[in-house]
């Protein structure tokens, strides 16, 4: 499902200013189209993770930055490993 910025805000419950900050930090990278950014379920799930980290787990901004960066590396590694596994 492809969502506009407004639909994404309604679905995820992220506040407008918070969303802008997240995009600025590249925690979320929505697709840029001529009519504005578009979001998918991937961004919703990622937003939920950031919300879990900041509200329930007591992680601050710097912590989120580090966690997301490491997590994206883990997923890159997992994918590479999976593809190596599949190609063998």
């Amino acid at each position, binding site marked *: 499902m492809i969502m506009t910025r407004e639909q994404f805000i309604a679905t995820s419950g992220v506040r407008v200013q918070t969303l802008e900050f997240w995009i600025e930090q590249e925690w979320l*990278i929505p697709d840029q189209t001529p009519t504005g950014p578009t979001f998918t379920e*991937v961004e919703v799930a990622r937003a939920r993770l950031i919300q879990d980290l900041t509200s329930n787990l007591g992680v601050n901004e710097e912590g989120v930055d580090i966690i997301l960066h490491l997590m994206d590396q883990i*997923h890159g590694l997992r994918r590479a490993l999976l593809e190596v596994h599949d190609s063998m």
Partner: protein
Amino acid sequence: MDQGAAEVWLTRLPAGGVPLASIPLHDRRSGSCRRLEDRKGFRPDKAYTEQFVRNPYEVLGVEPTATAAEIQKAYRKLAKKLHPDLNPGDKSAEEKFKEVSGAYDLLGDADKRKRFDGGEIDESGAERPQHQYYRDFASSGRGHSYSDSSGYADFMGEDDAFAELLRRSQEARANRRGQDVHYTLPVAFMDSITGAETRLTLPDGGVLDVNIPPGLVDGQILRLKGKGAPGAGKGGPGDALIEVEVIPDPRFSRKGDDLLIELPVSLSEAVLGGKIRVPTPTGAVTMSVPKGSNTGTTLRLKGKGAPHKGGGHGDEYVKLKIVLPRIPDPDLEAFVQGWDKGKSFDPREDVRS
């Protein structure tokens, strides 16, 4: 926290299949056992269908007398270990995290905790709705715009088999072509012969202009280059594959590139000849019916069929069918009565057994 207890995730029926309603539950604060039936708000129909939920104090590993700060600390400690996105490879993490979060939803909120301690709401009152975690997308490949190869970039310079495998899979991923997308497009019979421009409305609300080439047949697939799903890197988008469904026209049938139409003519048109209008894919044309035509007489309209592959067109064949007036006519009857030659003609001489 009590490690022994934490290993037991009580979401299954105990061995022997004891009905849930007869299992004594731990009392919230005293630790003594009560039967489920004796509890406030017990509904036997619900008790059988709901999962067996553990006491939230036990789940978080805190005493019933714990302070709010202690409860938060216990929750954070567990959640950091169990959050599904922080354990992308551990399938059981999600269930455990759900239980811990459910317990914290109850005990982390002073009001809910009070109501729970007072017996107003039960353990299951805090079940979290199911949702998809980021790892579900990251591992399926949809979140791959976020994934980062720096975790293994240092292997990439090496000249060995493992580095080669990694490099190949990374290149394939970085420049993967978008997927082909399949559609079905109904096309009117006439349009399938002459060709047409149509606009296909896509499920996501977008539109696709499709140029239907003349002479299309049912089931043919049109490929629109680059109109499929977007690709990654230099991969380019996939194609749109459009399967054409030709809606039959009751008047026409098609045989190769030729068209056949059965056309009714009156008795006088057949006997005396005349000019009639005949439908063709490019509009009606006038055709001469020769004097003395019969039912089954087939006339040809040159070049009115579907286009041949190498150029030129098929033909339209017009098969005549004599139709008498709908209301019997006394004059016609009288004429045929006195028409001796008509009586001596035997149209069935070839089919007589």
